[in-house]
C-alpha cells in the first residue's frame, strides 16, 4: 500500500520545493507534482521534513518503567515528529555492556520510532573503569556517554577518547565538574542567592568543556558536548571548531526557552541538570544555534513520576519532558528560518549519531521513508496531560507555542495522522 503526502513544502538539506511525496514499502518512491497513492495525507500549508533525530532521550527502561518505557517514550517521540531517538544509558542496570544493549534494542524493535541506544563510557557510569565499548559498538552503538555524570578523571577521559577513536564511535560528554557542582540544585547566581537554593556555577560546566577541547585536540578523537547551557561553553566550542578541533555540540530546548528565574516558583518541574541559566546564557544558546557553534537541538527528555517531582526542590530529581514540544519551542523561541530549525532537528543530529542515509533525509526517491509533516503556523497551548509519555513533568504548561506536528512516518509506516497515534 502506498501513501502520498499531498501539497506540502518539502524541506531537506538540498533545499525547499512544493511537491507531493509518495512512500511505498518503507521507501520514498517519488517526489513531484500531481502524484497519487492508496492513502492520502494532507500536507497543504505544512512542511514535509526528514523525521527528527533526538540525540538525547531518557527512555528509563530498564529500571524506571513507572516514569517511562521505551514504548511510551517512543510514542512521545512520534508525537514530536521524531523518527529516531538515541536512548541515554543511565538506566538501572545502566547500558554499559552488550547484554543491556541487546535488551534495549529488542524493546526498541517493537517501538513505533527507531530506537538507537548510547552506551556508557565507564562501567556503571562510575568514572573508574572503561566499559566494554567494542562489544557494544559491534551491536551498533555509535555514541558513548556517562550522561548524568561527567567523566571526572582527565586521564581516564583521554584513554576513553583514544579507545573510542579506534572503534570509529563518538564520545558524548555531560560536562560537569563534580567538586564544583556537588550539592547544587539550580544555577548559582542572583536567583539561587535570593531563593536560598544551593547553586551550581556555570564554571562547573565550562571547566570540563575546556578540558575536553584540550583532550580532543591532543588525541585527535571527536567529542560531542551534550546540553551546553552557558555563554562561556558555547564561546569555547565556537573557537575550538574554528581552530579545527573535532568537537560538536547540542543544546536542549529548555536551555533556549527557560531561565533560572523560573525556579522562583520552587516547582521542581523546573529543576534540570545542567540547570536553567540566566537570560544572557539562554541568549547565548540561541546565538550558538543560529551561527552553527551548536550543531543540534536535543530534547534531554527526562520523565519523572509526579511523586518524585513533588518532593522539596533540593530532593527532587532533575529533568523535564521535551520530545513533544521540541519543534514548537524551536519555531517559537529561536526566530530562525524554518529550514534551519529542520536542520537542527534532523540532518545535523543524524550526522552526529552516525545515521546519515537512514534518518535526516534527503527526501529523494529510494531513500528510507522517515518523515515528519508539521504546520509551522498552528498555535496551540501546551497541556501536560495531553501526552504519550507516562510522566507529566512538563515545564511548559499553559504556554502558547507555534508549530505543530501533524503526521509522522517511520520506515514507511504512518504512525501519526493528524496528531492521532496509529499503533
Amino acid at each position, binding site marked *: 500500500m502506498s501513501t502520498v503526502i499531498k501539497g506540502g513544502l518539502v524541506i531537506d538539506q538540498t533545499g525547499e520545493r512544493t511537491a507531493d511525496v509518495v512512500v511505498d514499502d518503507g521507501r520514498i518512491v517519488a517526489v513531484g507534482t500531481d502524484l497519487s497513492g492508496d492513502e492520502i495525507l494532507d500536507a497543504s500549508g505544512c512542511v514535509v521534513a526528514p523525521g527528527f533525530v533526538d540525540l538525547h532521550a531518557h527512555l528509563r527502561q530498564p529500571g524506571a518503567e513507572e516514569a517511562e518505557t521505551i514504548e511510551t517514550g517512543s510514542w512521545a517521540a512520534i508525537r514530536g515528529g521524531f523518527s529516531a531517538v538515541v536512548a541515554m544509558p543511565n538506566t538501572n542496570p545502566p547500558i554499559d555492556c552488550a547484554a543491556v544493549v541487546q535488551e534495549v534494542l529488542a524493546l526498541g524493535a517493537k517501538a513505533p520510532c527507531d530506537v538507537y541506544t548510547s552506551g556508557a563510557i565507564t562501567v556503571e557510569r562510575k568514572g573508574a573503569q572503561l566499559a566494554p565499548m567494542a562489544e557494544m559498538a559491534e551491536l551498533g552503538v555509535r555514541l558513548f556517554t556517562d550522561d548524568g555524570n561527567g567523566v571526572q578523571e582527565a586521564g581516564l577521559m583521554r584513554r576513553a577518547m583514544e579507545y573510542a577513536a579506534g572503534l570509529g564511535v563518538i564520545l558524548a560528554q555531560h560536562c560537569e565538574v563534580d567538586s564544583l557542582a556537588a550539592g547544587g540544585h539550580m544555577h*548559582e547566581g542572583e536567583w539561587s*542567592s535570593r531563593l*536560598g*537554593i*544551593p547553586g551550581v556555577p556555570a564554571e562547573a560546566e565550562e571547566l570540563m568543556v575546556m578540558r575536553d577541547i584540550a583532550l580532543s585536540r591532543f588525541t585527535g578523537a571527536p567529542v560531542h558536548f551534550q546540553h551546553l547551557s552557558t555563554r562561556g561553553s558555547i564561546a569555547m566550542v565556537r573557537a575550538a571548531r574554528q581552530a579545527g578541533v573535532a568537537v560538536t555540540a547540542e543544546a536542549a530546548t529548555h536551555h533556549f526557552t527557560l531561565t533560572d528565574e523560573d525556579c522562583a516558583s520552587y516547582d521542581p518541574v523546573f529543576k534540570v541538570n545542567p540547570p536553567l541559566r540566566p537570560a544572557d546564557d539562554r541568549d547565548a544558546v540561541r546565538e550558538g544555534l543560529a551561527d552553527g557553534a551548536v550543531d543540534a537541538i536535543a530534547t534531554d527528555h527526562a520523565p519523572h513520576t509526579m511523586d518524585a517531582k513533588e*518532593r*522539596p*526542590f533540593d530532593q527532587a530529581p532533575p529533568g523535564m519532558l521535551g520530545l513533544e514540544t521540541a519543534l514548537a519551542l524551536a519555531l517559537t523561541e529561536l526566530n530562525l528560518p524554518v529550514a534551519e530549525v529542520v536542520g537542527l532537528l534532523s540532518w545535523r543530529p543524524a550526522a552526529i549519531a552516525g545515521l546519515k542515509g537512514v534518518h535526516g533525509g534527503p527526501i529523494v526517491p529510494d531513500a528510507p521513508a522517515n518523515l515528519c509533516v508539521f504546520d509551522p503556523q498552528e498555535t496551540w497551548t501546551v497541556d501536560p496531560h495531553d501526552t504519550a509519555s507516562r510522566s507529566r513533568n512538563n515545564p511548559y504548561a499553559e504556554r502558547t507555542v507555534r508549530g505543530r506536528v501533524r503526521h509522522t512516518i517511520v520506515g514507511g509506516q504512518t504512525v501519526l495522522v493528524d496528531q492521532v497515534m496509529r499503533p
Partner: protein
Amino acid sequence: MKHLLSINDLGADGINEVCRLADLFTEVSQRPIPKVPALRGKTVAMLFYEDSTRTRLSFEVAARRLSADVMGFSVSSSSVNKGESVRDTVNTISAMGPDALVVRHRSAGVPHQVTGWTSAGVINAGDGWHEHPTQALLDCYTIRDRLGSVAGRRIVILGDIKHSRVARSCVMAFTSLGAKVTLVAPPTLLPPAVDSWPVDVSFSLDAVLSDCDVVYGLRVQHERQAEALLPSLREYTAQWGLTVDRAARLPVGALVMHPGPVNRGVEIAPEVLDQPNATLNEQVRHGVAVRMAVLYLLLAADPDLHPEGEAS
C-alpha cells in the same frame, strides 16, 4: 493576606501593621490572664519537619493566647518516618480542617509547595536557607522597641549569611523599613551574587564596629570547617567573633542581637550576651506578640492591612 511565605508578602506597610498589632498583643500578654478570644474556633496546625524549640513554642503560645486550637505534628512520632510524602501529610492534616499551617522544613520552598496542597493559610516558620519571616518581624519589633524606629539605623549582620534564612528575611525587612544594612563575613560565608542584595558588604568587623546601631550575630556551625568554608572556628572567632574587646568598641546604646541558638564563645562571647544592650531574651518575648499579630492578620475576619485614612 492568605499566606506569609516571605517578608516580601508584607512590604513596609505590612511590617508596620504587624508591629502595630504586636503592641496591642504585648499589652494582652501582660494581663493577669493573657488571653483574648480573637481566634476562638480557629485551628492552627504545626508542621515542623526540623527540630525547633523557640519558634515552635512561640507559635503555640501565640495561638493559645488568641484562643485558637493547636494541632501538633512532630516528625519523629509521625508517619514521615515511614516515608510519607510532604504532600500526603499535608493532605491528611488538611482533611482535619485547620485554618492555618505553620511549616518548618530543612528545604527551601516547601511552604510555597504546601500552598498548592491545602486550602488553609500557610505560615513559613523557616525553610532551608530561604526565609524565616516571623524572626525578621520580631527583630524589627525589638529594634523599634529599643531604638524607636528601624528607619535610618545602621545594622551590621555578622556571620554565616550564606546559609541563613534569618539573614535573607532580615535584610529584606530592615532595608524595606529604611535601615542601612552591612553584611560582615568572610567571603566564603556570603551568598552568591551578593552585589544584587540591597546591602553593603565588609570583610572586617573591626572596620564597621564603631559606626553601627545594631550588631546582629548569626550562628556559625561546626560543619563549615569540614566544607572548607573556614580554616577553623578559632580563626573565625579571632577575626569575626564579637569578643568582649570588640563589644567595648560599640557605640553607647548599640544593640547586640542574635536569633538563637547561640554558639557561645564562637560568634559571641558569653560575657557580651549578659550585657544590658544584648536583646536575646527580649527577642524571644516579642516573638510571641509578633506571632499573635501574624496569626491574627491571617485568620481574623477581614484583616485589612491598610485601613483607610491611617498613615503607615
